[in-house]
């Protein structure tokens, strides 16, 4: 992967009546990377994809593909491969005809078309299915035909619009990994749109989390999960325990935050604002541990087990820690370990390095 930019949106604005679907969005997709646009429905992610594909035009701003301004170029001239939500395979054409379609539109020579179609079907492991019609194939196979059709003409970038939504869970995981492998193998710059955070974490090089027409955070899956930039991202990705309060003080790397119920938390952070600022402490449920008598922890809180959900390999505890606060804990189950009952008194703790400090901009 190089750092060269393949696709760039500059101050893209799109409104529908009173609704701002895209609010002056800037985004760069690097050569060869798979960048995911993740967001709830209505966040503007589909609008962004449609602008890139050319199915809609922005009200203002620019879209550049490999340095060329494509803002107002018709979709047919963009050389972009796209896999649609419901595949959008042409039902009256065979698999081979479907895959050959983009090449025929480019007036590729017959022999070359045959060679490319064979290659693309080989890539998705559908050699031998050339004469089938889409409706004679399973959902997973149709998905692969759609992928073959999107890559057969060597597109500049690949767009994926929630392409796994219609597949059942097991198949979805398998196809996701397959697509990821092919994307890397072919070094295809890809823009992937989804509302499924797990999918985004599995597949992406980088994730752009969108909300209300803006990109809330852009970063690697690791950054997005471990260091969410704000409350929205923390809530949207994974499960979070959030304590909001005020910054009391700090030494070099550790900030002290007292939450509204008066509990003091310590959290390791890079940039620590001045005391008195509003701050939120985030700790993920799997970072919590049960403290036995005599155990040390930089952060500790005591409470009563309110709910237990047993998941086999792990269990989820919901702990009532007073003042209307609930703490969620996710722990591995071990044989021989004392099992907890609802109502048991427990102490939970975590280290300052396992927590993350979110400083909210003054609103």
């Amino acid at each position, binding site marked *: 992967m190089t750092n060269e930019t393949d696709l760039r949106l500059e101050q893209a604005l799109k409104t529908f009546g009173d609704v701002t679907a895209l609010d002056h969005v800037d985004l760069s997709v690097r050569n060869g990377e798979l960048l995911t646009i993740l967001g709830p429905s209505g966040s503007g992610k589909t609008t962004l994809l449609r602008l890139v594909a*050319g199915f809609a035009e922005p009200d203002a701003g620019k879209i550049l593909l490999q340095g060329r301004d494509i803002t107002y170029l018709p*979709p047919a001239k963009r050389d972009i491969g*796209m896999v649609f939500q419901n595949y*959008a395979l042409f039902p*009256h054409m065979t698999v081979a005809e479907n895959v050959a*379609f*983009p090449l025929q539109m480019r007036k590729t020579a017959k022999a070359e078309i045959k060679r490319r179609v064979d290659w693309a079907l080989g890539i998705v492991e559908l050699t031998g299915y050339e004469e089938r019609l889409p409706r004679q194939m399973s959902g997973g196979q149709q998905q692969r035909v759609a992928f073959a059709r999107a890559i057969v003409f060597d597109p500049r970038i690949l767009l994926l619009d929630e392409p796994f939504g219609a597949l059942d869970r097991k198949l979805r995981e398998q196809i996701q990994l397959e697509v990821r492998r092919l994307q890397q193998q072919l070094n295809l710059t890809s823009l992937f749109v989804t509302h499924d955070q797990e999918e985004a974490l599995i597949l992406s090089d980088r994730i752009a989390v969108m909300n209300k027409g803006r990109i809330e955070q852009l970063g690697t899956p690791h950054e997005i999960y471990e260091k969410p930039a704000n409350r929205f991202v923390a809530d949207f990705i994974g499960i979070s325990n959030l304590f909001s309060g005020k910054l009391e003080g700090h030494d070099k790397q550790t900030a002290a935050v007292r939450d509204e119920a008066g509990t003091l938390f310590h959290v390791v952070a890079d940039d620590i604002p001045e005391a008195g600022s509003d701050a939120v402490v985030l700790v993920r449920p799997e970072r919590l541990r049960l403290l036995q008598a005599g155990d040390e922890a930089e952060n500790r809180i005591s409470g009563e087990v309110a709910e237990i959900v047993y998941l086999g390999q792990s269990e989820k505890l919901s702990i009532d820690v007073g003042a209307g606060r609930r703490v969620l804990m996710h722990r591995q189950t071990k044989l021989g370990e004392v099992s907890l009952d609802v109502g048991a008194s427990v102490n939970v703790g975590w280290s300052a390095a396992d927590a993350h400090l979110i400083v909210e901009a003054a609103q």
Partner: protein
Amino acid sequence: MNAVLSCFRRTGALREHAGPVALSLPTVIFLLILFAVPVVQLMLLSVQSGSFEHYEKAFTDELYVTVLLNTFEIALFVTVISFLLAYPLAYFLTVATPMWRAVGMFCLLMPFWTSILVRTYAWMVILGRRGIINETLLSLGIIDAPMSLLYNTPAVLVGMVHVLMPYMVFPLYAVMRRVDPNLMQAAFGLGAPSWRAFVRVYFPMTMPGVLAGASLVFILSMGFFITPVLLGGGRVTMIAVLIEQFVTEFLAWEFAGALSMALLTFTLLVYGAFKWLMKSERNLA
């Protein structure tokens, strides 16, 4: 009737069919008495003399062959013109806003609520020597003498297309509504200019509607009577007109029967051809 029903009841698997069979009986009896029996009688009449002389005449006499071919030609023209007009209209209805769709549907359905006779006379008022078109062109000084717009094949075509177009629009509309709009976007995205996306994706997908509409219009055209009589003014002879003349003017029922059989056979052949096309289309799509 009860015997028939109990016969169905006895076999458990067929019991569920007893209800539908009973419900369809009135229609079946109605059609048997008023349609099948007269048709068979007419057919028998045509071979009453024990020979096929009437058929020989119908298929060898140049006059009747010409009329048959003429009928076929007019039906073909009506079908093609209806298709050319109905296709964009049906497309408009699928993409129109609900308000415009309601307006379009109303305009399409209106002819159905008006007698075919009234509509045909309306065309005579429009196309006549002193009709709206001639009067307007004369008063504007575009022409010096009235044109003869009536009593020729184009007049018959106009009248027939007007009556039959809804039969083309509705099957097309039904099929077009089911075409996934994503497919056209996919075609554009994959590099197809609008017209190629239309030719390669949209049109083939609406083919079942085209065939259904075309078969309806064609078959109905073949037996058209009032419009060719009134707008053709005796100069445009379609086979139904000829049959009527043989029955009411020459009282030659036997020959009318033979001509009817010829029309029926021809219609069934056309119907079979369309069925075959639709089937191969379905195998393809």
